[in-house]
């Protein structure tokens, strides 16, 4: 048993790429779900559109990196409008079904052979991150006994955490302003808000765009951190993980998504490192579980965790029972 390896990957995951990506995605989702009450089940599509917008611009069309970022952000705004305009006047469950359908449409388009000339089909795209790593100011890696990061990783983590901080600052500022008050009131009862002269539809669209854009930052970081994108990353399970994280950290809490993401990835990495090594030393007989099956166990535990959280602590780990976001309806 390599306990030191298991612990060091778990520790690294606390601040690692996945934690950043899911924290950003969940910050956006928290704006949708936690604050505005929008059931967006297509957050993965926002990340996907951002990442593909950037990668297609750079790799397929050979345009500059920054233009790619702009195209990605533009795509996210367009997606938010496309999803929001037909559904935001309807009941909450319609948005849920339309967004999950839209996310699947986006994924199927990304991986389709017909568009593979631009999207790279199921292989995805690579070689779009050179300009990003050219900006890397780090010249030496960090190597301690417990954690080690290469210079590339350090650069991605720095940019990622700066983005997380910016996103948190924006959400914090907004949610204590009159704008945030309207948003939270819409979550409680949009007819009441309408009767007070607020254009509910416009606010919902604004919230959808804001959450999409904040989440899309995660899409950029993910693509750049891996230096590659693949369509099947952006499946519905991506979104379900984000929901788990939002609820874990406590919906409608500014720091909830970050805390949730850190706990989530620490535990998941720990389990995913622990099980295979238990199998390899024979602590778990291979008749019960093989290394291949160990991967499924992580997902099973996420599912069970999500259920237990919602049943017994719907306010999240640090939330206040009185502020439970999920008892409505």
């Amino acid at each position, binding site marked *: 048993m390599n306990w030191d390896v298991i612990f060091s990957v778990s520790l690294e995951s606390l601040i690692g790429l996945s934690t950043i990506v899911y924290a950003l995605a969940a910050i956006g989702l928290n704006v949708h779900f936690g604050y505005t009450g929008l059931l967006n089940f297509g957050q993965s599509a926002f990340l996907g559109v951002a990442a593909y917008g950037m990668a297609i611009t750079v790799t397929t069309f050979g345009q500059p990196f920054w233009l790619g970022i702009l195209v990605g952000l533009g795509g996210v705004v367009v997606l938010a409008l496309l999803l929001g305009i037909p559904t935001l006047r309807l009941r909450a469950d319609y948005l849920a*079904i339309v967004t999950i359908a*839209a996310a*699947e449409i986006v994924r199927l388009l990304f991986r389709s052979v017909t568009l593979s000339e631009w999207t790279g089909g199921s292989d995805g795209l690579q070689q779009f991150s050179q300009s990003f790593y050219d900006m890397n100011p780090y010249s030496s890696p960090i190597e301690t006994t417990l954690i080690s990061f290469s210079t590339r990783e350090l650069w991605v983590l720095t940019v990622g955490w700066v983005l997380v901080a910016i996103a948190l600052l924006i959400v914090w500022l907004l949610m204590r302003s009159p704008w945030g008050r309207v948003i939270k009131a819409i979550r409680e009862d949009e007819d009441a808000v309408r009767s007070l002269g607020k254009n509910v539809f416009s606010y919902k669209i604004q919230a959808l765009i804001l959450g999409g854009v904040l989440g899309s930052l995660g899409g950029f970081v993910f693509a750049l951190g891996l230096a590659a994108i693949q369509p099947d990353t952006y499946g519905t399970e991506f979104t379900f993980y984000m929901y788990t994280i939002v*609820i874990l950290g406590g919906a409608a809490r500014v720091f909830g998504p970050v805390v949730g993401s850190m706990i989530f990835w620490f535990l998941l990495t720990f389990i995913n490192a622990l099980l295979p090594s238990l199998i390899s030393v024979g602590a778990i007989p*291979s008749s019960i579980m093989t290394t291949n099956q160990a991967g499924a166990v992580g*997902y099973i535990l996420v599912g069970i965790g999500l259920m237990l959280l*919602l049943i017994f602590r719907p306010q999240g780990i640090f939330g206040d029972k009185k502020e439970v976001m999920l008892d409505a*309806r």
Partner: protein
Amino acid sequence: MRRAVVMLTAFLASLFIAFGFGATSAWAEGEALQGTLINNGQPVAGVQITVSSQDGAQVGQVQSGPDGKWTVPVPAAGTYRVELDVTTLPEGLTLTNNRPVLTLPVFEGSARTALFPIGSEAGAGAPVDPGPNRLGQILDLVYTGLHLGLMIALAALGLSLIFGTMGLTNFAHGELVTFGALMAFIFNVFVGLPVIVAGVIAVALGAGFGWFQDRFFWGWLRKRRTGLIGMMIISIGLALTMRYISLYWFRGETRQYSDYVAQPGIDIGPIAIAPKNLIMDLIAIVVLVAVSVALVKTRLGKATRAVSTNPALAAASGINVDAIIRLVWTIGGGLAALAGVMLGVFQGINYQMGFQILLLVFAAVTLGGLGTAFGALLGSLVIGLATQLSTLWIPTELKNVGALAVLIIVILVRPQGILGRRERIG
């Protein structure tokens, strides 16, 4: 709290036990590369596949059998190159991803499945079979669309009834479909019963599973007064759990029942239909009509519709709302299991099959009008047809995109769905 944990453990344990039937013996047969070649639900035989090691030495060469299956044993774990000889594909068929060569790692003690997605010749509107004219092609798509629509309808009816009576958008409904297919697989392949008997058992187990879920899980959550959005997300957690339990025991490959895999079609007018599909259609229609008639004519059916319309009023008029919801879960579980068995016969069994069809089921239910049972039936047929007929204009690989796009367009034009009603405010 403890009670809940006990229940959940019992619930999961039952799943584990159910899947436990010889789960270990069936697939640990040593290292091999294998696969099943299927086009549109029909096996493709006689296609040549060559496996070579990384240094280029040929390890084995086989042709796919009449059931579309092929297996090449390899000497040891390692990375192998698998090549499908495209020229041996039947005329008009091609690899939809244009990747005849795959490089795959094979792990110790396990067979690795190589996927070669086969479809009609690339490009829009390419004929499915060599020969049939445009009309025949359209009729063929109409038939497969209706066939798919009937399978969606079986799942959608249950989903819609559950939504109507308890307000839950059940993301775990697809897992009920998978459950049915897997149960039938267990009784068919491991126990050795004929598919039809296994299917009947699977439907019974599916109904039992639906009852069980409501008795020990959803009913308990209702008593705790869990909010509807909370329950919806709980159903996501449940779906993840069940889907990966299925993966754990069933692995990631697509498998077939022992009978009815390859059945030659009989000519009906300009199109050829496999009799198994016609029989399944008949069963689906009989079941759907029976449930619909029961909803309209019987006391229980009327009570169910009363609960859908106004649960509080129904409760006040002496209807046992909880009992009705439990009944709906039982029926919904059985219908979903039937859909799973039929889907399994149609396109093979896979741990993701329920989830893959779930989106189409959602689309159907939404299209028909959330919570209206007859709307769900209508919506299913529309979605089934839209999925298949969209291939006239867009590539087959994007047919689900066509169906989901239809959903979004209909919601734009008629938000309450085809048969839905608008809500009153205030």
